[in-house]
């Protein structure tokens, strides 16, 4: 299935863009997507943390994705 990735902060630099479409197996979870991204973009391994959000909420590795869903990559935050 197709997943739309949106990147912020350093994640934008790593995927070299704001958005990215990824083709991943049906019924993939956030955890699967993470594994996929770490393989495609090894620079993510160097980050302190890597979180993901769907529908403007953090989601755990177990969260199951749906076709055409938008997933936001949340690299280590540094507001304030």
């Amino acid at each position: 299935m197709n997943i739309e990735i949106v990147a912020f902060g350093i994640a934008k630099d790593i995927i070299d863009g704001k958005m990215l479409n990824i083709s991943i197996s049906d019924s993939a979870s956030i955890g699967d997507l993470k594994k996929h991204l770490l393989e495609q973009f090894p620079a993510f391994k160097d980050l302190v943390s890597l979180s993901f959000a769907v529908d403007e909420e953090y989601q755990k590795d177990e969260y199951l994705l749906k076709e055409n869903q938008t997933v936001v990559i949340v690299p280590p935050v540094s507001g304030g």
Partner: protein
Amino acid sequence: MFHQFQEDDFFMEDNIKIEILTKEINALELEQFVANPACGGIVTFTGTVRNSTKDKKVLRLDFEAYEPMAIKELKKIAETVFEKWAVRKIAIQHRVGSLEIGEIAVVIAVSCPHRKDAFAACEYTIDTLKQTVPIWKKEIFEDGEVWVSAHP
């Protein structure tokens, strides 16, 4: 579908004011929002852009936010604050975009009947903001730039 960001996202209730701003923050306006005749104490945290990091000269900071989610996460912090302390009002403004040295990046103002609560609630808010709210800053040096806290 991908959410189209507004320029200035915000959340507003009688007792909570949360804003992500592209323009200058006015700390006084927030203090006036939280001021209340039933409250004796207001504690305000103002975060400004420092001129150096680990003795390296910073030229400016670029802030970026995932705005609708940042508003949601800030709202969660505010709700936790109301559960944990006797807080009357809270106001949080965070700026995004390019900020010069000395400019205000964030202001948090909390009013409480008792000052101990106001100190604890304000400190909790800035500490948690820095841990959970999807806002990122990039330090611009003379010889390059670095996303803050990204790497160990």
